[in-house]
């Protein structure tokens, strides 16, 4: 059985997609068979970061698959430049948006059922890790993706408003997900300011350590602290999309730290007989 990692956030632009792609490429370079799903149906962005190897017109999307009966899971899996990494795209925003508004609760129930079945199929195909780049906030879609997760990464920028929302979100999420299956939730600080100024450093550390206590109280572990990397930011401005896997090297040490914690958790689960 493989492991599903859902990357989520309460606010947009926190770095879910960058983290998803970096983590996926790190794991696949380590030899794991990985598939990344664009679960952000409102603003799917993987298609921009990992260019499809076939014409866009020929792509079958996750969104279509969830709703349609005549698509097989093989139809939506696409290769990437990395031999161990596959990808499932979601439809572009225009379709994505109208798609969200017109779909009813019933649709999402079926989508949940289908996602769970697909998760099993992907493990059968041989994927060790399924990585889901989730939509931010609480929607039926993002909750469905959280249900699939064995491990979740909550990506948060260090700003008091962002963290406050995350706290409420975690509590609500936990009451729904409690007792469903063993899960491990991690917190990821991203875009953390880098400074040499002692006063600024104190301010930052004060903020982070204050939240560390709260995060621990919520039963979550801080997996890593990713610094604000202005090179990464600048490169993304250019959409040098084919270079995405090398571009994320700047995040390598953080990703290795996350992988380390996930593997430790897996070992612990094995010992517990799960």
């Amino acid at each position: 059985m493989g492991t599903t990692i859902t990357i989520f956030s309460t606010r947009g632009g926190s770095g879910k997609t960058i983290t998803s792609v970096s983590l996926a490429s790190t794991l696949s370079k380590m030899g794991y068979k990985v598939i990344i799903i664009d679960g952000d149906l409102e603003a799917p962005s993987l298609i921009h970061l990992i260019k499809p190897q076939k014409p866009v017109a020929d792509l079958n999307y996750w969104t279509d698959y969830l709703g349609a009966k005549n698509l097989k899971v093989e139809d939506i899996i696409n290769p990437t430049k990395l031999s161990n990494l596959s990808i499932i795209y979601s439809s572009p925003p225009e379709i994505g948006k109208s798609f969200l508004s017109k779909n009813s609760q019933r649709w999402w129930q079926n989508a949940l059922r289908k996602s769970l079945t697909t998760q099993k199929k992907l493990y059968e195909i041989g994927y060790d890790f399924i990585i889901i780049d989730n939509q931010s906030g609480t929607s039926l879609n993002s909750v469905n993706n959280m249900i699939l997760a064995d491990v979740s990464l909550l990506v948060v920028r260090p700003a008091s408003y962002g963290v406050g929302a995350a706290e409420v979100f975690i509590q609500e999420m936990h009451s729904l997900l409690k007792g469903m299956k063993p899960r491990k939730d991690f917190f990821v600080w991203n875009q953390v300011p880098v400074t040499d100024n002692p006063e600024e450093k104190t301010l930052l550390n004060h903020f982070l350590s204050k939240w560390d206590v709260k995060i621990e109280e919520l039963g979550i572990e801080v997996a890593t602290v990713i610094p604000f990397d202005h090179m990464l930011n600048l490169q993304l401005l250019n959409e040098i999309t084919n270079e995405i896997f090398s571009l994320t090297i700047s995040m390598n040490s953080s990703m290795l730290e996350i992988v380390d914690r996930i593997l430790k958790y897996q070992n612990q689960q094995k010992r517990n007989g799960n």
Partner: protein
Amino acid sequence: MNMVQYLEDVVAILNLESSGPNFYHNLNSELFDIQAKMLYASRAIILCGLANQRSPEKELQGPVPVTELSSSPYSFYYFQLRPHLKGLQNIHLVIGLIFKTMNKKKFKPIEDELEAILISSFESLDFSLISPESADPKLKEQLNQIFENIFVEINSLLESSNSEKSIFNLGFLVNLSGDESKLAKKLMLFPDGLLLNTLSIDEQNTLNLLEQKGLIEKHESDEGIVIIPQ
């Protein structure tokens, strides 16, 4: 959520004696459209008056079809209440609820709750504002408030009965009781089915409750009985 959608389906009318003061409250522009407003209203009130003849007290009656109301078919629930106050022996209140017949299926499952809502709402009415000949203008205010509340309650009833009973309906799932919710959450992760014999005795007892609610189905297979979450 679908406030407007449901509210538009319902019209309420209150009639105090066929000769006494009438009140109606509506959110249905088709039924009470501007030109025909008074025509429809008066027909509805006559219906209400007819309904009060021999109807039992505090029991929801109907629905009866009211074909004459407009070109699209409507149905009508009515409910009678008598204020047991000195000097008011002859007063009976008839509350009529009119809705599109095509929505009958939606109302059927909530009839009991609807009755309870009508009883509790109208018993709060200040009957001292009514005399056999007239009603205090304050009564109209009170009634409007009651109607508003009824609409909100009916709306939320329709909404909750409308949301499907399914293990995959998360809103429904979290409202199950402790053990049931726990087992339902477990079963959800096996959409293609889980062998019955993998469940503990306690879980199998809880399973019966889920089965009664139509949340699981049991199927025979070569390996034994399989539970399929619904």
